[in-house]
Structure formats: C-alpha cells, structure tokens
C-alpha cells in the first residue's frame, strides 16, 4: 500500500494510535509501581533519539565550521586547500604542501564562512611533518578550534573532516564529510624525509584534493588532527575511503616554533632498532649520536620511549619521527636484565630538498614580545610599578651592566644573603639580573633576540626565548606555552648555552610583591643555591613610559 507523509515528521500509520494507547497504559503501571517498565520504544521514540543525536552533531559542526579556512594563493582563487584557525588572533594550521607555492611571498588569502576573504601570512613551516602555520589579518577576533588530546581517539569513533575538496566552496562554507577513525598510529611514506606521516590517524571520511590542511574534528567539535593525505589507486585522485591526518599531539610540540616563524626540523636518535625474536634491539648506534650521548649502548633492548611502550621498528619510527629536533626523550632500555632510563636530546634530522626559507625576523620578534608580555600578565598582573617592602637589611647592589636604555628607566635591587655559603657576588647577581630584567620589560626586543621554538619540561610544553649578550653570553627563558608562566631560565655561553639553570622558587604570600622573590640556581655540577630578594624597588624615571607599557 502506498503511504504518504501526512504531516511533517510523522508517518500516520495504523500503529500510531496503538502506540498512544500503549503509552497511557505504561504511565499507569509505572505510577502504581506495579511493574518494572521494559523500555519498549516505538518508532516515535527511535526517531526522537536519532534526531537528538543528529541535532547535537549539526550544532557542533556548525560551530566548528566558523574556524575553517579556504586557503588560496591568489585573489582569483585558482588553487588552494584548507586550513583551521586555532587562536583568536587568527593563527591557524594547514599542511606545508598547501602553502609550499606561497613561500616566496609568504602571502595568500583565506576565505571564512562569513563570506569574506582575509589576507593570510605564512609563518613557520614544518616540511618534514607537512605542517605549516599561518595568520589571518583583518579582524579583531577570529573563531578558533581548541586542540584535543589525539591519544584519546579510538578506532570506530565518529570524526568529521571540514575543508574545500575540489575547491567547491564558492562561498567559503566548508564541505563536511563524516566517517570513523579506521586506524591509529599509521605510517605513510613521504618523499625522502619530507611529508612523512609517521604516526597519523587513518580515517574513512571522504578526503579529496583540496581537503589538505583542513581540520579533523571529533564530535565535541575539537581539533584532533590536520588532514593531509589519502590513498589513491586505480580511480585516480578520487577518494576511496582512506584518508590520513597528522595528530594534534604531534603538531602541538611544533607550535612554539611555528608561531616563531621558523623552519622546523624533526629529531633523530641516530640509532636504529631491529626485532630479534621478541625483543627490539638497538643494532646500530652512530657515534656522537643523540642516543650515544644519552647513554644508549649497542645491544640495549628498547622497552619504551617517553613512557610509551615500543615493540616494533615501525612503532619506534612512529614515536621518534614526529618529535622536534633537540627534544628531550627519556628511554627505557634493558641491559643485561636490568632496566635503565637514559635521557637524550634528539639530534637534527637533516632534510634533503629543503625549500629555501628565510625565517622572518619580524615574525620571530613579535612572538618574543608576545611571550614576554604573556609572562608579565601571567605572573604579575598588569605591568607597572612594583614596590615591595619587607623587613631585613641588605646590601644594596646596582648592576654593573648599564641598565638605562633610552627612555630612562632605572632598576635597583637589594638582595639578602644567599642561603648557601659564599654569599652572592656581583657575577651571580649580574646573571640573575640578566634573567629577570627582560621579564620586567626592560630591554627592547631587537637584534640578539630569538624565539627558538619549543621544549618539554616535566611533561609541559614550553616556548623558548633566547637573548644573546656581549661576550657570547646567552640567556634562555622557557615559558609554559599555554599559561606563559616562567618554568625556568638558563644562562650560558656559546659552547655551553645552558650551564646554569634559574627557576622561581615557591612564592610566599605578600600583598604587594607579585613576582617571585625567591630564586634558585643550579649548575651542571649540581651545585644549588637560593637567592631571597628581601626588597626590591623599581623606579620609573619617566611617567610617560609607564602609560605606554600598560596593556
């Protein structure tokens, strides 16, 4: 029999009257507490349930779509790909191969679903991992996606890709395709070491040319990966159900370097492993390699890297190939039955055919300023005058290095005796001063400054800023990338850039002193000391300067 939809959303079928009666009956029995209700749902309930789930997904994806960028090389939009905004000031991610043709000018265009085309600048690139960072200009604030922990993904869970396959988005509204996670920690060969997807997410969402650089999101609307590749075979470059995305957990480690406009490099241990029976053995360790310097010996059995179990040569590649150069790794190895934990810093994996890319100094220094300002705001609230008054007498010390830049600031410090023996001497205080003075916004950010990229401290992602001073001295600050809190600072020279480590000690409550007044210092030989700042006065000679510095 032919049945027609008589009113929107409902099929008037002979059984619906029966279902209404059934519902009344159920309420009756439940109200009298007579029988446990078996949830015998009818067709209406099925539809309501599916609609509810569908509506939630529609809303999630509608919100996520605002952050998806249609990236073009030119205003005629003749070629391009996709990208995703990850910060409200317009910073976003895409694939390196999407912006590879824009490297000379560093300029492109990004269309957003509001229908407008925004100017786009290419910042840092990671050719090895096929990632790049851009920044959109032209608005006060952009919608952005937050990064999820891609290790939480499970095979079979729904994910959506948003992008611009075949450049179909005339109005910059992204194409949404839905699928599931088909596999995790997959390996896709690159070209040499470029565009290697060493630990990627395999998805069944339809991925076609033009999707590259676009976001892969979970059903909470958070970014879990950046889509970049697909398997194509007999049908040419048309999706056949296998797409691949770089994970957010991989990208996250490169964010500080990408924001600093750098050419990112991946790391290597300089050692290879082989399966001998059930064990994974280091069967080649290059001399002076990161592995060797970290204490790995030929024949060691590899158990885990950064607490992640590694059982096959593929897994070994998965874990190491996605880490940045100079990244710290803690290895767990078995040597003659004993477990050991050598620590190493990865060496640089040199890329062949690296594109010519001169990092933009302005971009780099802008990132330095952003981190320093962020530190101030994180640690001190609004910058400005800080005056402390605590008890205790102390020696007055004025830094031997001229501290008065044009504009006329002075800085005086009185420090108490150091806890350890020997007391603070001028050299020590000079070192401390070099660390702290820039945190107060003292020196101008210019030549000698460098946002170096990222690092990992106690499992926290850090952004590293370096300043080169006269005499080859260099100071580095490591800020927590999210909170901008200062995790530690190092002082050193050309040959040993990090010979002494400074970090802020525990704070004691003090109404007026809002930045750490206890500092600890440790040198390579393990000697530690503590400096307690009893009183500190920062005097600003020029009142106008104070106004300028307010955010």
């Amino acid at each position: 029999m032919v049945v027609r939809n008589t009113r929107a959303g409902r099929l008037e079928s002979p059984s619906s009257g029966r279902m209404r009666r059934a519902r009344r009956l159920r309420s009756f029995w439940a109200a009298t507490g007579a029988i446990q209700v078996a949830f015998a749902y009818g067709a209406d309930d099925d539809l309501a349930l599916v609609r509810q789930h569908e509506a939630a997904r529609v809303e999630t994806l509608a919100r996520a779509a605002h952050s998806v960028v249609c990236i073009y090389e030119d205003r005629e939009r003749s070629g391009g790909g996709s990208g995703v905004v990850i910060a409200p000031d317009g910073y976003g991610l895409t694939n390196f191969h999407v912006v590879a043709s824009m490297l000379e000018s560093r300029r492109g265009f990004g269309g957003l679903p509001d229908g407008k085309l925004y100017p786009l600048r290419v910042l840092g690139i990671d050719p090895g991992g096929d990632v790049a960072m851009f920044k959109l200009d032209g608005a006060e604030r952009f919608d952005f996606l937050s990064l999820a922990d891609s290790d939480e993904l499970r095979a079979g869970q729904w994910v959506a890709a948003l992008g611009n396959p075949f450049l179909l988005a005339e109005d910059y509204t992204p194409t949404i395709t839905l699928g599931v996670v088909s596999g995790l920690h997959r390996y896709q060969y690159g070209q040499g070491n470029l565009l290697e997807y060493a630990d990627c997410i395999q998805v069944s969402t339809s991925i076609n040319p033009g999707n590259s650089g676009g976001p892969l999101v979970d059903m909470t609307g958070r970014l879990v990966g950046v889509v970049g590749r697909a398997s194509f075979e007999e049908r040419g470059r048309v999706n056949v159900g296998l797409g691949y995305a770089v994970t957010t957990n991989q990208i996250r480690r490169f964010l500080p370097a990408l924001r600093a406009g750098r050419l990112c490099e991946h790391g290597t241990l300089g050692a290879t492993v082989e399966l001998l029976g059930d064990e994974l053995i280091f069967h080649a360790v290059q001399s002076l390699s990161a592995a060797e310097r970290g204490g790995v010996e030929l024949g060691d059995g590899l158990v885990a890297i950064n607490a992640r179990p590694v059982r096959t040569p593929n897994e070994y590649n998965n874990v190491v190939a996605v880490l940045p150069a100079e990244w710290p790794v803690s290895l767990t190895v078995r040597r003659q039955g004993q477990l050991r934990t050598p620590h190493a810093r990865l060496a640089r994996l040199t890329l062949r055919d690296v594109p010519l890319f001169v990092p933009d100094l302005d971009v780099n220094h802008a990132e330095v300023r952003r981190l320093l300002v962020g530190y101030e705001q994180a640690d001190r609230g609004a910058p400005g005058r800080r005056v402390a008054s605590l008890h205790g007498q102390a020696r007055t010390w004025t830094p031997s290095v001229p501290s008065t830049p044009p504009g006329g600031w002075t800085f005086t410090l009185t420090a108490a005796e150091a806890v350890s023996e020997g007391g603070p001497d001028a050299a020590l205080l000079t070192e401390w001063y070099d660390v702290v003075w820039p945190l107060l916004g003292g020196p101008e950010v210019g030549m000698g400054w460098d946002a170096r990229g990222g690092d990992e401290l106690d499992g926290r992602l850090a952004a590293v800023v370096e300043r080169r001073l006269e005499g080859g001295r260099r100071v580095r600050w490591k800020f927590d990338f999210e909170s901008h809190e200062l995790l530690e600072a190092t002082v050193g020279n050309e040959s040993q850039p990090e010979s002494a480590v400074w970090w802020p000690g525990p704070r004691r409550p003090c109404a007026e002193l809002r930045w750490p007044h206890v500092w600890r210092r440790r040198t390579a030989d393990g000697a530690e000391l503590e400096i307690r700042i009893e009183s500190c006065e920062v005097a600003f000679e020029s009142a106008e300067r104070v106004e300028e510095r307010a955010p």
Partner: protein
Amino acid sequence: MSNLVPKQHRLAGRVALLVLGGAAAAALWAQQPASQPGDEVIRLRDAQQQVFRAALRAVAPCIVRIDTIGGAMPVEEMGAPGEEPVAAPTFRQADGPTTGVIAAADGYILTSSFNFVRDPAVITISLADGRRFVGRLIARDRPAGLTLLKIDARNLPVPHWLPRESLRPGQWALVAGYGHGTATPALSVGVVSALDRLDGRAVQTDAKTSPANYGGPVFDIEGRVMGICVPKAGGEDEIAGVEWYDSGIGFAIHADYVRERLPRLQAGQELERGLAGLRFESAEPVVGVPDPAVPEDGVRIVAVAPGPAADAGLRPDDVITHLNGRPVARLRALRRELVRAAPGDTVQIGFRRAGEQAAVAVTLVRVEELQARAGTTTQPASQPATPTGGPP
C-alpha cells in the same frame, strides 16, 4: 469519568498515585545499571537502523525504476592496445536500470539527464507497487542536468519536498537507487556536506552517489526529499562529474530549484542557460585591502560581447550592484541569480558607472545566439574564451 469516584477518594487516589509514582521512579533509578554505556550505545545504534529503514520505506513509493532500450552508444573507449585512441576515454555507460523520482501525481517523473544521454528508443518505468508503464521524454533542464518523463498514470504518491532553509550541514542524508538491480532501492547514508553548491543549485552530500542512484532522491531521516541526485550540474555535459562517483562528493539539485522549474518542463520547454554576453571580474575583494578594480558592493564587468547586454548599453567597468531588485555584492550571488534564468527571461540589472546608479532590462538569449552574433563557430560553452555568466 471522575464523577464516578467520590471526592475524598479521588484526593486519596491522587496522593497514592503521587507516592507510588515517586516510589516507582526511585525503583527505576535504582534499577538503572550504574552508567552502562553499552545499553545507551546499543539503543542509539538500533534506533538509527530503524530510522534509516523507516525513512526508505517512507520515500520508496516515490522512487521509480527506469529501464531503457536502444539509443546511440556513447563514444567508445580507446581501441585495442597499440592503436591510437579513437577518442578521449570516457565513462562507458552500462545498460542497467536507472532511477527516477515522481514529480507530480499525474505521472511526471524526474530523473538525471545522465540516465538519458543515449536518447533511448524505449523507456519503461516501474513503480514501487510493481506497475509498469511506458515512458515518454518530455523536456530537459540542462543547467540542472534533469530530464522530465511522463507516464500515463494518476494519483501517484509525490515526495515531501524539503525547502532549502530547513537543511543543515551535518544532518543525515540518505540516497537510494535501483541501478544495481535490487528489488527495493539500494541505500547509502552520509551527511549533508554543504548547502548552495554549484551556483546555489545543489546540496552536497557524502552519501555514495553513482550511476546506481543518479536521478534518485536524497532524503532525510524522515523520508523527506532534499533534492534529486545528479553527477554534477554541468549543463552542457550530462555525464560531467561521474568520475566522482562513490567518492563522497555527491550533489542533489535542490527541491526548491526543481519545483521552480517543473512547470516549464511540464509545458515541454527545454531549459537552458540564459546568457547576456557578459564576463565578470573573478577576483574577490580582500578585507582591509581596498582595490577599486574589485568593489565590495558589486561585480565589475570585464568584457561585453555583442549581445543583449551590449544592446542594453552595459559597458566594461560598469559595476553590477543589483539583479531583479536584489543586491548582488559578489560574483557568486550574481551567478546564483543568473543560473535560474532561461533564454527569453528579462532581468533587471542595476549598475553603477562613474559614481552614478542606473538600471537596464536585459532579455537573455541562448548560447547559440551569442555565438552567432560574435561570428564564431560553435565552441563548447565551458571554454573560458566564450562569454558565459562567469568563470567555469
């Protein structure tokens, strides 16, 4: 009913119900297995299956199976190995059944022009209830890639068409067709990928669309039809876009567009693109970077070919700001309006020249007329040199 029970008993009864209701609810909560995701999951999964099936059942009466016999074969593939290819390899169409949708209760059937490239001699149409009819080809809508057929039948079930405003990216989209020779239409599920694709003619879906379901409906979880599945609304080439079959890039001509065009097709009018002989600036304005050549509130004319636009007095560098009274700030808005117009339609074009606003009426013509006036031989309309409504 309530009169039969004395008042104080009724009150006691209500209190009893309340108390027992509370107890029952408490009992229910206690019996709920403490956070068992398994049950919810199975529930949702089963509900989805039921709903997909029910949606197909709801729309199946409106889906027809089309069998054709005879007609010219399309261009053959390459010759034997070693020989020069006789023509560019193209998709070789098969002889199997195809799919259509009932468009009007008095026997009109819409399908994809992909299914009628060969101009078959005999068309038979089978309804879901098993009845079979001989079909006649009435007219084609070339910009949409749709073909209208007619059978001698009455009181046919028509789909519930969904207006474009009610569609949402991310909602379930199902597509069904007879191409694999199944007894009931074979189903595929995906989501609505985007609205307003192909100059606003089509909704895009990642459900698997292919010759097995071109001409069939794309519908929601209640069996309401969003549009008719086509390879790609190309207009000139009915099979353009078939290379994307089963790729997760699929298109359906909007129900709104279909309904708007249907009366003319039913009257036997072959629908083509109406052209004015204009070429437009293809660059878009960029936020914060003003450029007089790329205005923010209109579309600059780059070239005017001999034709209706030239006759009406439009010139290069005029900036079109309105079409039929509606503002068109971008080329895509202009194209969306123009793609709905047929040869013979008159459009009101509002434009700005040297700071002054003016308006003209332009009667659109067929591409052959433009070519005749330009004095050129026939060219495929997809070549950029030919004045079309804009870049391909």
